[in-house]
């Protein structure tokens, strides 16, 4: 069996190909890395107007029943029980060692929790969640739903909604029932839209017909999220990395930081109380040469870390990266050397996001 035969496809596969998508394997799916405009043009268009992304490879699920929020809190330090109906949050699933099993979104839909997890982790996350559920709480995977993201400053006028950033609601777009949240992975305002698979192409065509909407592939999705300082699981986060090391302490609920009753709490608490050896930081290489993931980071000749994501930021007009460095090298402005093709490339620790977020708060 060849690789392409074993790859899964999204409900938008035919449309992606019709639009000139350059299809590549990603997390077991055949996905468009770019369309005809190319990564640079797609990236800049999304920041200027609006871009449509097929992210149907991501895992969607519902958690239903009395005590669903409390059950999920066993696995995440996020405040699930305190989340109001019509609101969504970012959270981390942790293992016993306080390592990050996945990062995910959860939303309070009133009668249920709606979850979106990474494509590459859904086979791990869903059984993990299932394993902690009391009787009466059910996890329902939603493999028959597609997920689209419409991102960019034009979205608010193309599809007006009463939601602010991280709001979520059931609504109709172009006459099609959807679950839409005011969120995304680009740093821009926009919507993430869950829709029944059989209506996904009709919805995507309706969105593409709106003025200024361009299809955007995974290549620009990656450069957009990197400029926005957002993590990619598998690159920037993994099971050996704690929320404190990842600089995602903000995703932990205040109440949860008093109760310490989530999986891995002992390690996370120790990291908060006694500090960590390494921290995720933003990095700006000097000049135009990008430093990619796995690039060694040195300071005064000593190895002090590694780049986890890096590339060229089209909106910045310069290379940008993030990675982990020793705690004493994590201050903004710290001079580093990135070892690219055996040569030191001068760089500095820099504040993230590189590109200011433009959320509708």
């Amino acid at each position, binding site marked *: 069996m060849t690789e392409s035969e074993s790859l899964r496809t999204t409900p938008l596969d035919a449309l992606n190909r019709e639009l000139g998508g350059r299809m590549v394997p990603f997390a077991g799916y055949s996905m468009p890395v770019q369309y005809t405009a*190319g990564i*640079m043009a797609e990236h800049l268009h999304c920041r200027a107007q609006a871009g449509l992304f097929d992210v149907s490879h991501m895992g969607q699920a519902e958690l239903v029943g009395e005590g669903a929020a409390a059950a999920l809190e066993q696995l995440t330090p996020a405040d699930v029980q305190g989340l109001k109906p019509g609101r969504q949050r970012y959270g981390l699933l942790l293992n016993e060692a306080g390592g990050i099993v996945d990062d995910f979104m959860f939303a309070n839909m009133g009668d249920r929790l709606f979850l979106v997890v990474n494509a590459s982790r859904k086979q791990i996350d869903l059984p993990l969640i299932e394993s902690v559920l009391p009787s009466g709480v059910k996890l329902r995977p939603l493999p028959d739903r597609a997920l689209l993201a419409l991102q960019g400053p034009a979205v608010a006028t193309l599809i007006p909604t009463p939601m602010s950033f991280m709001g979520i609601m059931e609504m109709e777009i172009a006459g099609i029932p959807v679950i839409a949240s005011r969120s995304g992975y680009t740093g821009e305002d926009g919507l993430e839209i869950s829709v029944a698979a059989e209506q996904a192409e009709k919805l995507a065509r309706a969105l593409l017909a709106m003025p200024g909407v361009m299809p955007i592939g995974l290549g620009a999705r990656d450069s957009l999220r990197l400029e926005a300082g957002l993590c990619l699981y598998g690159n920037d986060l993994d099971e050996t990395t704690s929320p404190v090391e990842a600089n995602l302490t903000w995703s932990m609920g205040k109440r949860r930081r008093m109760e310490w009753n989530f999986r891995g709490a002992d390690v996370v608490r120790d990291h908060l109380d006694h500090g960590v050896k390494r921290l995720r930081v933003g990095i700006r290489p000097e000049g135009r*040469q*990008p430093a990619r993931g796995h690039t060694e980071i040195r300071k005064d000749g000593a190895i002090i870390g590694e780049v986890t994501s890096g590339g060229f930021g089209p909106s910045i007009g310069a290379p940008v990266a993030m990675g982990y460095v020793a705690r004493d090298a994590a201050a903004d402005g710290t001079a580093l050397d990135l070892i690219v*093709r055996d040569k030191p490339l001068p760089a500095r620790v820099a504040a993230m996001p590189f590109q200011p977020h433009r959320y509708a708060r």
Partner: protein
Amino acid sequence: MSDMKYTKDHEWIRFEGDVAVIGITDHAQNALGDVVFVDLPEAGREVTAGEAVAVVESVKAASDVYAPIAGRVTEVNSGLVDEPALINSEPTGAGWFFKIAPAGALPDDLMDANAYAAYVESLA
């Protein structure tokens, strides 16, 4: 253009008198995507055929560029440093990489335009 030769690494070679001008093909620039950085060899460097001598970085990936023939680098296109997008817009013109004064015989696996087109077709 009739004297343009091509390699399986998707470089082109155009002979101008005693010097070979070298760049990457339209197929190569299209596969790479938007070029954002290029690292060129030093003029005067002696290179062997197949040696990695330049690096081209697009938004998504880095690729080596090889010396298709042995010889001495006589000139590099320093204009690419400030305007690497020339590699995308004019890959066989203003987007040239470097010039080599050949030493010894040319490799016998260089392709003409038709053979290269057939080779690219065979990769699809």
